[in-house]
């Protein structure tokens, strides 16, 4: 099956063509199920490939499946090949699996929308590109997928493009991503000039000969990380993600929670050998990750739109993943990627279900008391909240706890501390969300209240499946400390650790088991503190948030307005750029080029006007010119 692994991206592509050309004329059910089944087939093939890979022994788990010879130009050769190894397998399964569930969910959610067929076309296209991204065996194919998912993100965020605001959100996402893409491309070019190849295996082999901390590799990794910062919404390029909530909720779940935004983490993990060779870049990754984690968490504390809270939560959790990679624990970063995909997708889909029930209302201040009216949604949402808050027994606990442990073990204690505080904040704002949405009295309109209803099975079944995954998904990475086999890390080990690079991977001094238990306990305590605080503020004493907001007015306002980052960017970057382009367009385009082109015309006309005056009409003038001409000729003949 591994040799037919090219089927995996092919199925969604078929879906694109089918729904793209015929979707408009077919009934919704056909379009929706066709698209979903295509992704389903991809998932099945991915599972088969996974099992086959499982059957091979660990050293040989890296198979390159060539598809076709794409780019051969001089010494640059980038074939369109697929690399099947543990890391790409994990990503394939997550992408195909979660996408499949979200496709099914969308059949119910997008029911009745005019652009139903268009939606499924774009969604399938996205899955195609995302699979290309994670399955490619060289940086150029990855970049194709990278750009492709950026495009689909734009198309899907601005899906309801008749609304200017939504269309602008799509534009913003694409443009901010471009900044990151520029870094990525520069990184690829540097890589090519340094290593002569952009194939993963080729680059990693040659990189091993470089000294640690080499300037070139630091430059490459920083450039690549710029790409990751854009795609995975880290500081300073995260501003597009909250705006991206303008798209349909399943899109937010798929693209902006589970898959696309994790592409940056995947890229960093894939390039782990390069990052290990550039400790400075790794440090930058860790700092950016940690800063983003806590920064976004603070903003999420006071947001009032259900999707915006989840958006900032996503940014924060992505920060955690980069934090993990930054301290050298790439496998743990991927682990968190997987568990996050489960519970964040679930949270978004659940919020979609809530919005569906609330007839489109998204402000949590107008919700409340929904837990009995939409029980399945509530139950699954609650499970996901427990998972993200790091409650033991659920997947989020294992992955987040591993990250904090590795951060502590790396020796950078302050990174661990930031992660811990952010965990507390996470628990707080997630439970705030739950309490305000599902508990208490309903605070919305009467007309809305009358229509509250549970979502159809096409929407609730994916919720349930994801809830189950959010619970059991963590056990694949159960750490040894808790009598587990640390299976997940072991599975990824051949890709992420390189014993030949001795002394590189500061095999972080394994702290004592007791320290590990202590840290585990600390993170549980911190999570509980957050939950209790939320309980206090939003259940027991509902006026408390209001009083606090009044007392700390400025802080509250700054947080509510997201630190005014968007306004700052607008003033510092966007407006000056627009002004410059105005000036340049006037200078170069209007005056310069138009002037040149018109000038040519003007010159010709003016010359004509001038030259024609030679024809005076007076015969003697003509005779005079003839005479002068003859003189010139004679002169030439006589004096040459």
């Amino acid at each position, binding site marked *: 099956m591994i040799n037919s692994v090219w089927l995996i991206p092919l199925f969604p592509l078929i879906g694109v063509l089918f729904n793209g050309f015929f979707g408009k004329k077919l009934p919704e059910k056909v379009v929706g199920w066709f698209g979903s089944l295509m992704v389903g087939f991809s998932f099945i093939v991915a599972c088969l490939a996974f099992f086959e890979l499982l059957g091979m022994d660990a050293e040989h788990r890296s198979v390159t499946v060539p598809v076709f010879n794409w780019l051969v130009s001089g010494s640059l050769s980038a074939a369109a090949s697929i690399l099947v190894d543990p890391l790409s397998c994990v990503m394939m399964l997550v992408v195909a699996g979660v996408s499949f569930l979200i496709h099914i969910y969308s059949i119910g959610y997008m029911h009745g929308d005019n652009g139903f067929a268009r939606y499924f076309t774009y969604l399938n296209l996205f899955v195609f590109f995302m699979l290309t991204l994670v399955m490619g065996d060289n940086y150029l194919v990855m970049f194709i997928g990278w750009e492709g998912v950026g495009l689909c993100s734009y198309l899907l965020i601005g899906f309801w493009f008749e609304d200017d605001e939504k269309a602008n959100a799509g534009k913003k996402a694409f443009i901010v991503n471009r900044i990151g893409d520029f870094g990525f491309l520069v990184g690829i070019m540097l890589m090519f000039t340094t290593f002569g190849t952009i194939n993963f295996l080729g680059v990693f082999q040659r990189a091993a000969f470089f000294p640690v901390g080499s300037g070139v590799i630091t430059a490459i990794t920083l450039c690549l990380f710029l790409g990751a910062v854009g795609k995975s919404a880290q500081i300073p390029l995260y501003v597009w993600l909250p705006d991206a909530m303008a798209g349909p909720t399943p899109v937010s779940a798929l693209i902006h929670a589970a898959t696309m935004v994790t592409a940056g983490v995947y890229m960093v993990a894939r390039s782990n050998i390069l990052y290990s060779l550039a400790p400075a870049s790794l440090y930058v990754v860790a700092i950016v990750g940690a800063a983003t984690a806590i920064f976004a968490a603070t903003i999420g504390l006071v947001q009032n739109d259900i999707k915006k809270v989840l958006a900032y939560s996503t940014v924060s959790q992505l920060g955690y993943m980069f934090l993990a990679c930054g301290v050298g624990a790439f496998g743990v970063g991927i682990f968190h990627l997987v568990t996050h995909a489960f519970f964040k997708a679930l949270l978004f889909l659940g919020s979609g279900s809530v919005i569906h029930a609330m007839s489109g209302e998204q402000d949590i201040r107008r919700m409340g008391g929904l837990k009995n009216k939409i029980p399945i949604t509530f139950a699954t949402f609650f499970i996901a909240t427990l998972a993200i808050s790091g409650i033991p027994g659920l997947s989020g606990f294992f992955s987040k706890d591993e990250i904090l442990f590795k951060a502590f073990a790396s020796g950078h204690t302050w990174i661990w501390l930031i992660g811990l505080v952010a965990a507390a904040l996470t628990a707080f704002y997630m439970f705030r969300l739950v309490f305000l949405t599902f508990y208490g009295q309903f605070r919305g309109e009467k007309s809305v209240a009358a229509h509250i209803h549970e979502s159809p099975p096409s929407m609730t079944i994916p919720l349930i499946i994801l809830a189950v995954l959010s619970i059991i998904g963590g056990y694949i990475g159960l750490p040894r400390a808790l009598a587990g086999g640390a299976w997940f890390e072991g599975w990824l080990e051949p890709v992420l650790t390189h014993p030949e690079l001795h002394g590189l991977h500061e095999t972080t001094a394994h702290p004592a088991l007791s320290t590990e238990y202590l840290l585990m306990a600390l993170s549980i305590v911190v999570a509980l503190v957050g939950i209790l605080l939320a309980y206090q503020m939003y259940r027991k004493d509902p006026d408390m948030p209001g009083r606090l907001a009044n007392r700390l007015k400025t802080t509250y306002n700054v947080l509510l307005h997201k630190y005014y980052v968007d306004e700052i960017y607008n003033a510092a970057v966007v407006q000056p750029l627009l002004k410059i382009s105005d000036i340049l367009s006037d200078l170069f385009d209007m005056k310069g080029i138009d002037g040149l082109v018109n000038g040519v015309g003007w010159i010709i006309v003016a010359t004509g006007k001038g030259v024609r005056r030679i024809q*005076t*009409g*007076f*015969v*003697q003038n003509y*005779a*005079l010119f003839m005479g002068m001409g003859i003189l010139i000729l004679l002169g030439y003949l006589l004096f040459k």
Partner: protein
Amino acid sequence: MVSLPHYLVLSAILFCLGVIGVLTRKNILIIFMCIELMLNSVNLTFIAFARHLGNVEGQIFVFFVMAVAAAEVAVGLAIIVVLFRFKNSVDIDSLNIMKW
């Protein structure tokens, strides 16, 4: 001793006087006369050469030049008369419609 260059220089003087007349005078008839002057100076050149080279061809050529000049004068004066009928003036500057 009068030799060829003398005749040639004299001929050149007459020719240039003819050119100046053509380019300077405003009366069509006088311009025409100056053209005749130029033709004659060339005739002189031909005959001078014929004499000094011992070749009679020069004189034959002058014969034909005279014939052509006669024909040309006839037709030219006819044209001038017709022009006079239209413009009622012999000023060459009045014939200025061949312009932009």
